[in-house]
C-alpha cells in the first residue's frame, strides 16, 4: 500500500476535483454542439466544426496562452467576470478546470456527435407524434440511445483532464494547493533532488486512477448496451 503525504493527497484530490468539474462543465455544451453538428446543416458548419476541434491539434501551450489572453485580469472578459460575478479564473483552480475542459472538449464532442448520428432521427419524430416536445423527445430517445457514446466521451474528457499539463501551466501556472494537479506535481517533484519517491507514488496513483476510469467506463457501457 502506498502512503501519500498530505501534500500529495492534496494534489490527488485537486486533480479529481478539476477532472470532475471539467466533465460537468463540458457536458452541456458538448451535448448541444454534438446535436448541432450531427443533426443540422447550415452555412459555416465546417468552420464551427473546425473551431471546436482546434484544441485537439493546437499545442496545449498555445491553447493555454490564448486562454490567458482572453481571461487574464487585464483582459476585458477577465475584468468583467471578476467585477460583476466575482469570478476569478486566471491563476485559480477554476482556471485549471477551464483549461482541461477546452483541451478535452473535442474528444467529448466527437464521441457524442458520433453517438447521436448513429441514432435513427425518425425515432425522435415518432416521439413527437406521440406527444413529446422537442426537448423531451431528445432526452428520452436520442440522448438515451446515445448514452454509451456520451459516457465514452465523458471518460475521455476526464482522462484528458487528469493528464493536462501544457495549457494548465501556461494559463494558471503551477501553484501548490490551487492549480498543481498530478502532472504538474510530478513535474515539480522531478525537478527536486529528493523528489523521486514522491514522483514514484504519484505515478502509481495516476496509473491506478486512469485504469479505474477505463474499467468502470467499460463496465457501465456494457451494462447500458445490454438494457
Amino acid at each position, binding site marked *: 500500500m502506498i502512503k501519500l503525504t498530505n501534500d500529495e493527497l492534496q494534489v490527488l484530490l485537486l486533480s479529481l476535483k478539476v477532472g470532475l468539474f471539467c466533465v460537468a462543465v463540458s457536458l452541456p455544451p458538448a451535448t448541444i454542439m454534438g446535436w448541432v453538428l450531427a443533426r443540422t446543416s447550415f452555412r459555416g458548419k465546417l468552420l464551427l466544426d473546425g473551431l471546436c476541434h482546434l484544441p485537439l491539434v493546437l499545442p496545449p501551450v498555445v491553447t493555454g496562452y490564448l486562454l490567458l489572453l482572453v481571461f487574464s485580469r487585464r483582459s476585458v472578459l477577465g475584468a468583467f467576470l471578476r467585477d460583476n460575478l466575482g469570478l476569478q479564473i486566471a491563476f485559480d483552480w477554476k482556471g485549471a478546470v477551464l483549461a482541461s475542459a477546452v483541451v478535452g472538449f473535442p474528444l467529448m464532442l466527437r464521441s457524442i456527435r458520433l453517438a447521436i448520428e448513429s441514432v435513427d432521427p425518425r425515432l425522435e*419524430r415518432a416521439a*413527437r*407524434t*406521440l*406527444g*413529446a*416536445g422537442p426537448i423531451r423527445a431528445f432526452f428520452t430517445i436520442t440522448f438515451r440511445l446515445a448514452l454509451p457514446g456520451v459516457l465514452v466521451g465523458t471518460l475521455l474528457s476526464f482522462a484528458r483532464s487528469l493528464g493536462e499539463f501544457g495549457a494548465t501551466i501556461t494559463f494558471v501556472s503551477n501553484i501548490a494547493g490551487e492549480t498543481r494537479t498530478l502532472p504538474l506535481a510530478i513535474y515539480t517533484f522531478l525537478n527536486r533532488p529528493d523528489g523521486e519517491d514522491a514522483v514514484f507514488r504519484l505515478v502509481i496513483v495516476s496509473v491506478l486512477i486512469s485504469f479505474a476510469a477505463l474499467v468502470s467506463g467499460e463496465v457501465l457501457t456494457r451494462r447500458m448496451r445490454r438494457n
Partner: protein
Amino acid sequence: MLTLKVRRSFQDFKLDIDVACRYPVTAVFGASGSGKTTLLNLISGLMRPDEGEIALDGQVLFSSLNGVDLPPERRRVGFVFQDDLLFPHLTVMQNLRYGYDFLSGDEKRFTIDQIVDLMALSGLVDRHPEGLSGGERQRVALGRAILASPNLLLMDEPLSALDQVLKDRIIPYLRHIRTELNIPMLYVSHSVAEILELTGQVIVLKEGRVLAHGDFFEIAHKPDVLPLVEAHGFENVLPVEVIANQSDAGSCRVLFKDQELLVPPCSRPVGQRIFIGIRANDIILCRTRPDGLSIRNVLQGRILGVTRADGKQLVYVDVGKRLAVEVTVEAVKELDLKTGEQILCLVKAQSIRIGPDVE
C-alpha cells in the same frame, strides 16, 4: 373531418393539395413519389407547408394566413410509420405507454389493458422490440399510436414491410381500430387490395396533386386513374362465408351472396366469414353457362359499364358486389358487351387469394 389546402415546393417536386376527407377511413393511393408520405408529414406537423391551411374537426392545425403552426406534439395526430420505429431501449409496455403517459386523465380514451387485448400483445409486454417478429412489432406500433388517443391516425404503408401472410393477419386489427375504436384514419398504400379491405373512399395522388377523390369504384375506371390502379394489378375483394372445408379435396367451398365458390384450401372453420381476392385479369366473361370446362366458379351478374384505357378494357359486373373484369378491346367487340346485359364471370379456383377474416 380533415380539410387540407396545402402547398409545398421542393427542389424537383411540388405538392399542391386541396381536399376534404369526410369518411372515417380514407385511403391515399398513388405511385411512389406521388407525394403520399409528404402529405402525411405535412398533416402531422413533421414538415411545414409553404402555405395553406390544415384543419381537423374544426381545429386549425396550420394556417399560413393566421400564423398558426401547432407543433406535432400538440396536434393529436397519430402516425404509424412504414418501419415500426419502436424505441429499442424500451420494453413493449414502455413503448405503449410513451404517448399515453403524456395525456391527462380525461384525455385518455382507452386503457392500456384494452389495447393490449385488442392488439393481442399480452404475452409480449415485458419484451424488447428487438426480440419481436415483424408482425408483432407493427402491432405494438399500432397500439402505441392508438394509446396516445389521436383524433386522426395517419398510416404510411404500415404493412408494406410485411409478407402477405402477416399482412392478412394485421388487417383485422386495422379494422378493429376503424370500427371498435372509432379513430378516423388516413391510410397510405399502393395496394388496391389492402385499401379495399379497409375502405372504399380513396384519394388518388399523382405528381403532388389530387387526381381523383371519392368512392374507389366510381373513380377507378377514369382514364387517368386506371393505369395507376392497374400498375399493381387490379384485385377485387369479396366477403364470403366458409361453408365446407375439405382438406383432402385440396379446396374449400365458400358462399358469396347466394352463389357458391371453390377456393384454395384454407384453415378457417366452417361459418367463418373471410375476404377473398380475385384479380381482374383472372376473370373470364362468358355469355352462356360453360360446358366441358374445368372452371368451377361461375358468378352471374349484370354489366354496369365498360371503360377503356391503354388498350385494355375494364368491364364492371354487378354480381352482388361490383366486380372489375379485365378484357381486351377485341373481346368487348366480339362479345358485344353492353351495359345492363346479363353475363357470367368465370374464375379459376386456384387463382383466388384467401384474405383475412371479416370481423
